[in-house]
């Protein structure tokens, strides 16, 4: 959503109705302004998501539910009502799964431009693991067995996330300010340079021109 609102892709945005406003943003490339305004927001949200979902769970479990139980134990009119309210709460697998999957997709989308997101994701998943483990063993009631539908859905999403990763990586690395690249010159595509790559490197002997040609030759071969 953030990308769709801020990016400017004229070729695609022409196909989208004007009132939607997607892909008609200010940034046609991931320049410094994008990083300062949009990128900071993305990283900040991911940092925010490290603790906030767990904080909400803790507040719900240890404040809201605790108050509710306290209220019920005072005013329950039957044993059945009391037992019903004092039951352990259920583990919302779908919520946790959706959150984890969203984190994975977001990190895969933007980690090319923001490698720090990998570290953020590692911390986030580590904390999620320990929090869920603790709550499952100590607080929640034993969850029911579920099928593999959620995992299969996640497996279907991951290739899409990978394609988004490729697209955004291409977009972020194509910005000339952050990733400057030199044009391929005619001299660089000299066949003798290409074929004689190793010889060129060995014979360079510190010559800047030879090194440049060898590097350009490697670039051509790589392509």
């Amino acid at each position: 959503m953030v990308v769709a609102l801020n990016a400017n892709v004229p070729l695609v945005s022409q196909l989208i109705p004007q009132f939607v406003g997607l892909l008609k943003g200010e940034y046609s490339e991931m320049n410094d302004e994008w990083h300062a305004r949009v990128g900071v927001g993305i990283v900040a949200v991911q940092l925010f998501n490290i603790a906030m979902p767990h904080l909400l769970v803790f507040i719900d479990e240890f404040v809201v539910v605790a108050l509710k139980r306290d209220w019920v134990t005072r005013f329950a009119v039957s044993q059945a009502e009391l037992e019903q309210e004092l039951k352990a709460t259920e583990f919302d697998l779908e919520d946790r799964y959706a959150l984890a999957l969203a984190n994975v997709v977001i990190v895969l989308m933007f980690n090319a431009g923001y490698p720090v997101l990998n570290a953020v994701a590692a911390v986030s998943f580590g904390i999620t693991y320990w929090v869920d483990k603790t709550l499952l063993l100590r607080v929640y009631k034993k969850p029911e067995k579920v099928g593999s539908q959620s995992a299969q859905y996640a497996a279907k999403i991951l290739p899409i996330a990978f394609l988004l990763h490729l697209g955004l990586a291409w977009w972020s690395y194509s910005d000339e300010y952050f990733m400057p690249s030199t044009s391929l010159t005619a001299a660089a595509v000299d066949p003798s340079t290409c074929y004689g790559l190793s010889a060129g490197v060995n014979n360079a002997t510190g010559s800047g021109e030879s090194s440049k040609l060898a590097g350009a030759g490697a670039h051509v071969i790589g392509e």
Partner: protein
Amino acid sequence: MDKAALMQGKYSQASPWRDADQYQKWTAVVDEKTQVVQSLRKSLSDGASGDASIAFVTFNCEESWRRCVEDYRSSTSCFGRMLQPAALRLGDVSTIAEQPSTPGASAVRSPHDSRSPTPTQVGAPTTRKHATTASTAIKVEASPAPEDLDFRNMYASENSVCARQYLVLAMLVAFLMICTFVFAASETAAASVDASFKSSWLCQKEIPSSAAGTRLVDPDYGNLTSSAPLIVRVKSAEAAVCRGGASVAESLGYNKSVASGDADSEFEYEGDGKYFLWFEVRPAGTTDAEVNENAIRAIAAAQPESLMQPVPAIGKIAYVDRCAGPCVEAGNAGLFSGVASQISNVGQGGDANAEVVCPTIGFDEANAGGGNSEESAVGASFVNTATTYPPQLLVECYCQQELTSQVQKLGPIAGSAAVLSDSDSGDVCSTLVTGYISASGLVILAGFITTVVNSIMRAVLHCVTNLELHISWSDLKASLMQKLFIS
């Protein structure tokens, strides 16, 4: 039919309740029911041409079950059934081997049948025989574990489930569109706040340096000599430095009491007849109260009178040699007769009657500040040129400076109120401050609405997913997970 047969016997001739009319009536009912049953049996015996074709298949071992599910993995989609290999289709009875019953099962359905298996089919040893050679694509789904079944939804028709899923999907799309518009509104509001503020480069460097007129940069700041220019601004330094090491800070000043034609305001600019804006220079780190005329004169004393002098009526310093550019439109540079000569002095050339080209500060990153950025060597320094600026731009820079300062000191609300209530800045800055307050409020409101909409959508998704009548709890949770992920 059993009831009809009983009633027929009740009214027969052998019964104590014999009644010829009732007997004929119930005989007709029995005949009719019999015909229906016979037709049903006939249609069922027709195999593939019949409608009822659902089976609960059991396997000897789990490997066979997995093999079947794997082979028919694409059978749940219409496209997959269209391309279903002939060997997997339902065809001649001779191709179907009989299977004994074991635990572990798969429900085999015709794509046109109701999704609910009959009680006799579920869990029963099943072998379907079909007397036709026409092949039919079949749909195979792994049946959920018994404890995973939601028996309330067992008998929901496929059409009903499909319609409900599309309905829920439409609701999800509608919610997402609402969220998109709210999010876009917040982004637009944030952008409007940014757009209402001029760039810091423009307000803090480009315009001041133009206002100060010629400024030469000594490449080596530490080796200033007496012949160095009066005001030197070093790269990346925010404060200007006077000769002798006295730091000064520049900011826009405003005094609405100075009127056009005032004898002391020879350096004033009347943008639209209301504003008098100048760049004040004072020792860095001092407050307004600490800036007195003596301190300013002390600074000014170190400067050549031809370059800098205080404005007695106000007690602050204005640049004598400032370029008319920041405040004077093109072709209206006559206020300062020295402008053209100054420009020519720094090798830029110029014409007092033409658009004023203001020499500006010469940073290394010459192109960063906009303007014409024509570099020309002046001694060991570089001078850039900038075009003129409209008066309103200077007013906006002044208001931005005041608003930023007050917000930093008092916070967004009290700071904005302080600017509005100020006798000097309140009247000229009311438009900018009002816009700032509106945009900030809109950003906060949009963020709040987004949070509320997300919370509502989360609760609604939990409810509407139940409407989809999933046959198992796992399907329900998976569907909910998908919706939460997308949202």
